[in-house]
């Protein structure tokens, strides 16, 4: 009989443990009971649909990062050829992963191949075309790696930005099956529009030397160079004193956002809000060389391909600078935050946005808990009425099941969602089913004139197989649900899976122990109330 004492102790121990980690913190925060800090940290996490918050899915335009890389490589090759005195027809970007060099002179072919090998062979396949043209295509594995890097970098950047925004417990993770989507979940954020803007801003900053301009139209700008854009130059626009102004700048930037060490909100000399920045040591070296060489010319401060301002370079600048423009205080604060957290490697677009207001979440919790309690009460009443004494077993097993389920979820940091509450109710149904199976089997065995003990043992050992098969099939369904699911659905699958596992314990172990306990009390001629 020592055996049964151990069983009861195990049950009580398990109950107390899971009650403390799962149920007690909920009661404590509701009724202001004393609660040690380590328990509070365990409190069951609520999903966005219950707590309120923002759920965003973004697509990272990875092809942009590829295009930039392709363009840069093409440009590098052009410069290398120019330096070696090889004149070519031109360089043209065909797609994000391919560019074409045309008009390579027959007699300089050897030289061209050598230079192309140096510059592009590591990442690009070269294939000759007609009339001295060569196509360069990015190797597939390089392209895949670059896409992957772009998404990971975007994820890290968003993570930094969200942290700077001061959001508690954000979740930023990969999403979907196309490998270029990110899920961003921000609990309790109210300024949705601002958060969305801060997350998405590419914030690609570069400082380029102005070759011509500003001019009020593109034609006027290009008039000085004979109406044609010279090689290595590009035209950018920006807000000027009257309407839009156009600038012709050197394509190769003096410095970029990657050279930034810090950025902060400050005032410019006219007292307007501006962003001050300081450079890394490497950036400062580059910057002081470029500014030293170009004193008297203009420097365009370009943010996401738009010229913010183009101040004159008065002298050599080493490691400090300022971006001024027509900014509000808020814009300056956000811009410096974004610059500090680094540029995004590519732009992004929103694919899905869900905002759950805190009041909706509270309504959901209220009705979910209400439905669970009513369902539980109905089921308990039925079981007690139908199975009498054994019904108590079922109710104990049921309550135990729910307590372990809550505790388990809290302990392992699983998230409770509204469909999770539905999973709760379903677990209740499955739990009752297991008990019904056992009880009906016991009745049958008793009707077949077996002794009570023999009937109990036969029933439990027979039903074990049935329960095993039914639970495994339900677990298969739950596994696919988890695999497929987004946030809330995943919550349902999690609850269901844990519920199925705890149910095996409560129906097979707890319920049986309770039967054994009742039998022990009446050793002579045992009877069961069932």
């Amino acid at each position, binding site marked *: 009989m020592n055996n049964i004492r151990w069983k009861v102790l195990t049950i009580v121990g398990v109950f107390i443990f899971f009650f403390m980690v799962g149920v007690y913190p909920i009661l404590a925060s509701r009724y202001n009971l004393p609660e040690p800090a380590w328990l509070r940290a365990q409190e069951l996490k609520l999903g966005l*649909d219950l707590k309120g918050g923002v759920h965003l899915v973004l697509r990272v335009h990875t092809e942009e990062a590829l295009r930039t890389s392709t363009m840069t490589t093409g440009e590098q090759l052009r410069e290398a050829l120019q330096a070696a005195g090889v004149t070519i027809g031109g360089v043209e970007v065909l797609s994000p992963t391919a560019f074409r060099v045309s008009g390579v002179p027959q007699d300089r072919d050897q030289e061209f191949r050598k230079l192309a090998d140096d510059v592009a062979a590591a990442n690009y396949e070269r294939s000759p075309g007609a009339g001295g043209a060569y196509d360069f295509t990015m190797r597939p594995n390089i392209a895949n790696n670059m896409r992957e890097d772009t998404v990971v970098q975007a994820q890290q950047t968003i993570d930094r930005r969200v942290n700077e925004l001061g959001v508690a417990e954000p979740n930023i993770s990969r999403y979907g099956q196309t490998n270029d989507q990110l899920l961003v979940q921000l609990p309790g954020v109210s300024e949705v529009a601002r958060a969305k803007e801060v997350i998405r801003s590419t914030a690609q900053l570069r400082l380029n030397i102005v070759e011509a301009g500003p001019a009020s139209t593109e034609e006027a700008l290009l008039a000085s160079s004979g109406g044609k854009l010279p090689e290595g130059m590009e035209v950018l626009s920006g807000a000027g004193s009257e309407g839009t102004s156009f600038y012709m700048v050197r394509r190769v930037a003096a410095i970029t956002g990657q050279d930034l060490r810090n950025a902060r909100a400050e005032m410019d000399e006219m007292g307007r809000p501006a962003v001050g920045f300081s450079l890394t040591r490497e950036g400062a070296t580059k910057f002081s060389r470029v500014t030293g060489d170009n004193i008297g010319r203009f420097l365009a401060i370009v943010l996401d391909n738009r010229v913010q301002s183009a101040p004159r370079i008065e002298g050599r600048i080493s490691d400090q600078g300022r971006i001024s423009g027509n900014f509000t205080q808020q814009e300056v604060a956000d811009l410096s935050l974004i610059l500090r957290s680094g540029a995004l490697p590519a732009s992004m*677009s929103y694919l899905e946005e*869900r*905002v*759950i207001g805190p009041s909706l979440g509270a309504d959901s919790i209220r009705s979910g808990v209400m439905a669970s309690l009513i369902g539980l009460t109905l089921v308990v009443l039925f079981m007690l009425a139908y*199975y009498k004494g054994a019904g108590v077993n079922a109710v104990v097993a049921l309550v135990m099941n729910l307590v372990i389920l809550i505790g388990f979820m809290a302990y392992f940091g699983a998230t409770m969602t509204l469909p999770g509450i539905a999973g709760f109710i379903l677990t209740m149904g499955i739990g009752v089913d297991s008990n019904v199976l056992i009880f009906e089997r016991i009745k049958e065995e008793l009707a077949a004139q077996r002794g009570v003990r023999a009937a109990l043992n036969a029933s439990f050992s027979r039903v074990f197989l049935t329960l095993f098969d039914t639970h495994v099939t339900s677990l298969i369904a739950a596994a*696919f*649900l988890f695999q497929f*699911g987004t946030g809330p659905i995943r919550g349902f699958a999690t609850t*269901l899976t844990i519920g199925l596992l705890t149910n095996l314990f409560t129906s097979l172990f707890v319920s049986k122990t309770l039967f054994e306990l009742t039998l022990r009390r009446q050793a002579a001629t045992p009877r069961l109330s069932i």
Partner: protein
Amino acid sequence: MQIFSNANYDFVRWRWHAIALSALLIAAGVALMATRGIPKGVDFEGGTIVIVKFDQEAELQGVRSALSAGMPGGGDAIVQRYGPAENRDVMIRVRRTGEEVEGNLSQEADAVVAALQKGNLGNIEVVGTEIVGPVIGEQLRRQGMMATVLALAGILIYIALRFQLSFAVGAVVAVVHDLAIVMSFLVFFEYELTLNVIAGLLTITGYSVNDTIVVFDRVRENMRAMRRDNLAHIVNVAVNQTLARTLITAGTTVLSVLALFIFGGEVLKGFAFTMLVGVIAGTYSTVFIAAAIAILWQGRKPMKGQAAPPVVTETRRPGRRRAS
């Protein structure tokens, strides 16, 4: 207390009636789906939902006219009360979203809010928005199909391994039957296909198989004791033996799902409805469909674990009570 303590119904005899009834129901459902289409929620079709709280009683008609006056295409918006009336929450659904790329996805949502503010309906507070672009809609649609098909395949394989193929076929036909019935009811009662409804459908998949397996498990057990009987008879005995359990379980599950349906709030309504119909259909198919299909599939081939082919061809005599 004991219901069906000596249950002895000849379910197998009614199998053709049952199959005919189910086929009729499903055919009606399919016809309905073909004419009406399956209404998809924003999760699968893409679109914009805005839920607003009014600070004073708002007539839905007033909201509709504010929308058709205040935004392009606002006349097509679906306007419904959301949750209990005293919350004064109204849900507005537009089938479009802003552009995903190069645009502002939340453009339509902003337009709805602007139109309501212009409409002179008192102060409004946006309590929730759901905007799903077509890309995600398509993605979720594909994933939902995939999850259902894969789950069914997984279950089929598991049962085929643990029992035998004819049982697996019976169980899967029963599940597909349940899903078809539930879909028919969803379309008839104009529920939209949302993520939560899909979760409900997958749960029904698990539940229905669960229910069926209990009977099959009993068949497997009886086969050892009733070697001389034919499959139809063995199955009938098993269905009767487990009848009390089948009905009690269905009853308690319906109780808790009903509580969810009535008290669970707006978000879970579709889920609860799916479960409600699914549990009832699942119970029916467990008793009438699953085993009938297994018997048909098995034909006269010998069963695993049964040495000789069945002796009796078709039984018309009432099923014998327990064999042990």
